[in-house]
């Protein structure tokens, strides 16, 4: 399986996971001026922007560690675009990270959901 295929699989897994938790999925792979958000969902009157990260093996550290400053900024920019486009500016919102880890040599997938992973100022929350 290529890295890309793995990524697509992880996004489907993450969306299914969120749906299971009762989130309504509003959009996947939403792009705004080349800034992309993997999943836009909605729960309890709040818009949630989700970045999905996937890794097989621990060699490169935890997947969530791969969301750097620049990546956060791009996500925030896209989020602002989404809110403006859908006239949702006075909604509360949130940035989450869902990480999908391939473990035991591909025998199991571990999903972890980090609620409120960062703020719009690109810093940890």
């Amino acid at each position, binding site marked *: 399986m290529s890295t890309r295929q793995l990524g697509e699989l992880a996004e489907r897994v993450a969306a299914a996971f969120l749906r299971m938790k009762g989130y309504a999925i509003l959009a996947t792979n939403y792009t705004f001026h080349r800034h992309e958000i993997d999943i836009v969902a909605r729960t309890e009157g709040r818009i949630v922007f989700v970045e999905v990260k996937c890794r097989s093996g621990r060699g490169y550290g935890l997947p969530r560690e791969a969301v750097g400053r620049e990546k956060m900024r791009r996500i*925030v920019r896209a*989020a*602002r675009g989404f*809110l403006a486009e859908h006239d949702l*500016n*006075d*909604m*509360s*919102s*949130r*940035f989450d990270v869902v990480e999908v880890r391939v473990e035991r040599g591909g025998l199991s997938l571990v999903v972890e959901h980090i609620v*409120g992973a960062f*703020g*719009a*100022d690109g810093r940890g*929350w």
Partner: protein
Amino acid sequence: MLARVSSGGVSGIEGYVVRVEADVSRGLPSFSTVGLGDSAVREGRDRVASAIRNSGFKFPMERITVNLAPADVRKEGAGFDLPIALGILAATGQVAASVLERVAVMGELALDGSTRRVRGVLPMAVAAARAGLTKMIVPPTNAREASAVGRLRVLPAASLKSAVRILGGGEPDALIEDSASRPDPGARAEDLSDVRGQEHAKRALEVAAAGGHNLLMVGPPGVGKTMLARRMAAILPDLTEEEALVVTTVHSVAGLLPEGAGLLTARPFRAPHHTVSAAGLIRGGSVPRPGEVSLAHAGVLFLDELPEFRRDALEALRQPVEEGRVTITRSMSTVSFPSEFALVASMNPCPCGNLGHPRVPCRCTPPAIRRYLSKVSGPLLDRIDVRVSLGAPAFEELAGGAASDDTRGARGRVLAARRAQEERARSAHTDRGGLATVNARLHVAVLDDIVRMSTEARSVVRSAVRKLDLSARSYHKVLRVARTIADLAGAGAVAAEHVSEALQYRSDPGRSRVGTGRPRGS
């Protein structure tokens, strides 16, 4: 929702009330602090978030805006953590906003929500009381300091959780008191009788203390210059309440108040090392903090080995010595700190220290001596009213029993002399506002009025001016010192003996000593 909390800041040694506004609204989650906070204020965000979570409250995932008003004054330090945290709790309905009215709040937060002490609480408390606030929440180690301002109810809070409980009407936490700041009845104060012999110098010390004169002691090493200087603070009258407030404020702003201390009651004694820079003497940091001269306010600034000090440091002393305060201008602000101290300086007569010693020969060359003495500039020397030479004491003096003159006696005389000066300032010159009470600060314009001399005294001065070639400045200095000596004697008019004694305190380390006690031709 919006919530307001009162807190405080300090500019120079003046406190002012800061209104902390916290607004929590919908939108992308973010936390911004506006209102000219320094990096410690801005970093407070992470401390506040952790402290709120670790105290069992909810940190809102909303758009949080914190404003510190007035917005045009630079604010520094971590003391806004607690008011910001309470503001966020009030804005999210976790604390009733009504309990925050008329309360001043200050304190740094640790990540676990406990409070840490902050600098400058005393002047902030003064400002809070002036602004009509009635209660003040502070960390327990700041409580005694805040209590020095009588009009506020001080509520010590050891943590964010306690602060919320106290605001809701709960009992305040116990304040933490500094055991060292309470007087220890068993302790023995430093006493003048610890110094054997040196009666002449002790007398000079007394004169300097009585009239607020600056003092220079010249003498070989080990004769008791430092010991005498240390005892100067002990023979000065007690701090007045007003002075104690200022002294405590200066130390509070400098962050040098002992943890849990209340009002300082002892006169400060500062003895900066001779490697101190001009900046260290006058002020510290780009945000001005009190320097040594201000920490010595109302007390004693002792400069041991005067010629070893850096030239620029000594020159920087001129303004505080002359004006009793230092003014510091920064791009953002101009502040001024009080610096009315008694300057006590000591120096050796020459680099080896033995010049003038009756038995030990001096090994310095005349140029070396000149170089050494020239390090102390004339203008500075000129501002020292009382100069005295100390010799090596004889064996009999050293081995002799204790106590020739004790501190209590000297203290009593100094106090009486100070009273006489105050009395005079009050009765004769109430119309000249701001007239300094101590003789050392008598203005030339009033000197002749205040220093009434007998006929003999006048003739002694006249011949001295002629014989000693006194400059106008030196002449005025002699008058001031003579007035002090007369005050010590309880005399209304200055007599000849007072003037003669005053003339003795003019020994110039440069002129009078060079050449004596040195075998010719060696």
